[in-house]
């Protein structure tokens, strides 16, 4: 049976992992290579690396970090942050990423999704959507969750799949950094109508939050960052908890 995936995320800036609350207020959280090696051993199903600075000057550092992280892994690696062109994506793939995640640039120019899918295959294209609650549903936010777009998140997810994305990385802007739990209503709404897998993100703290997002939110995978970096929550223990709750997971050896 296809396992539900647990995906730690490294938000990186200048070769270091950083963490923030509601997309703001960053602080240092460790060495990406050491964290990656630990998560790989602990039974992480994949790893995501986001260049949150995403400045042109910082690009060589990010690519070098991808190379060093990829060397530690025998699980898939997704990388993104600031990918605007096919050439940006090629650099990230050449550095060792298996998948590319795009966000703002895909909203600005949706054909980017098709171009990436044609070159690398749908399985390598992860459309990241930052969604924020408004009256009728959820609105797509861009530029690190700061700027509204007037686009409906569910429609954008469906459009992304049509354009050739292979997965949706769905972050709740309302929950991100709050540790109040994943946004079950948002994830459920998007995942139940999606034809491609949905990774839930934003708000995780307790093992129970993960059980909820799989059971009630119909997430195919769940992503979290800071709770793993602190060492408060081991991935091994989390997966054992989920297995005990009858959520299908891959238990590490």
């Amino acid at each position, binding site marked *: 049976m296809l396992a539900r995936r647990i995906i730690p995320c490294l938000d990186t800036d200048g070769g270091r992992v950083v963490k923030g609350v509601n997309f703001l207020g960053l602080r240092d959280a460790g060495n990406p290579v050491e964290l990656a090696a630990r998560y790989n051993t602990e039974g992480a199903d994949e790893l995501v690396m986001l260049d949150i600075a995403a400045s042109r000057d910082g690009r060589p550092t990010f690519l070098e970090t991808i190379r060093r992280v990829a060397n530690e892994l025998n699980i898939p690696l997704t990388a993104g942050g600031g990918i605007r062109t096919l050439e940006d994506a090629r650099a990230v793939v050449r550095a060792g990423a298996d998948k590319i995640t795009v966000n703002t640039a895909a909203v600005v120019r949706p054909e980017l999704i098709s171009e990436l899918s044609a070159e690398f295959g749908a399985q390598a294209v992860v459309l990241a959507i930052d969604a924020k609650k408004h009256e009728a549903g959820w609105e797509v936010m861009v530029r690190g969750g700061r700027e509204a777009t007037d686009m409906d998140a569910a429609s954008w997810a469906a459009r992304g799949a049509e354009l050739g994305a*292979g997965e949706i990385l769905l972050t709740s802007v309302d929950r991100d950094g709050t540790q109040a739990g994943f946004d079950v209503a948002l994830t459920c709404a998007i995942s139940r109508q999606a034809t491609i897998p949905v990774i839930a993100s934003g708000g995780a703290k307790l093992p129970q939050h993960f059980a909820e997002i799989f059971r009630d939110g119909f997430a195919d995978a769940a992503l979290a960052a800071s709770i793993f970096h602190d060492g408060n929550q081991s991935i091994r223990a989390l997966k054992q908890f989920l297995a005990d709750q009858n959520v299908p997971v891959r238990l590490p050896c």
Partner: protein
Amino acid sequence: MKVTLIDYGAGNLPSVERALLRLGVRTEKTNSPEVLAAAAVVVLPGVGHYGALIRALDENGLRDSVIASIHRGVPFLGICLGLQALYETSEEAPDLEGLAILSGGVRKLSGGAKLPHMGWNQVRCACGGSRLLEGIGKDAFFYFAHSFAAIHGTGGLENGDAVADVGATCEYGAEFVAVVERDNIFAVQFHPEKSGEAGQRVLQNFLRLAA
């Protein structure tokens, strides 16, 4: 031992190479028919679009040398698209001819499940057992990332010969071929280079069988 990786620009080639290097073998990457003709062990990695792989093999003049090396008995491992290429056709690019080492065709996974089939899944060994999966627990998970597969027990794979080549199957919407084994021919639909310890063991088994 030196392993020759067919380099047609597949996204997973660096990962496959890294995984092999970790196991202590030497590797070479090539898109030259002459180099391939002299190879002692051949790995065909692949991920993405079936058409891209088949076209790249033909554009580089590699089709005949891959087929010839397989027929000469050179140990061969196909990964993901490298498995699919062994069949006669694929619904992903119906106008193109596969390598036709195995009979039958590759079809889109259906059954209402989300596609791609993305993530970690378990496999079931065929009754004859699997040499590639030797020593790996039956509950082990492997990493899959594909939308097309050699569907087991229907269509082109109904004939006895093709079914006999199946080392293991996986279930996602339909039962499909996860492991192919016939003489010197090995292929896996999952990505051993991305499948943790279990995947590493698959590669080790292949290298042992190839030695």
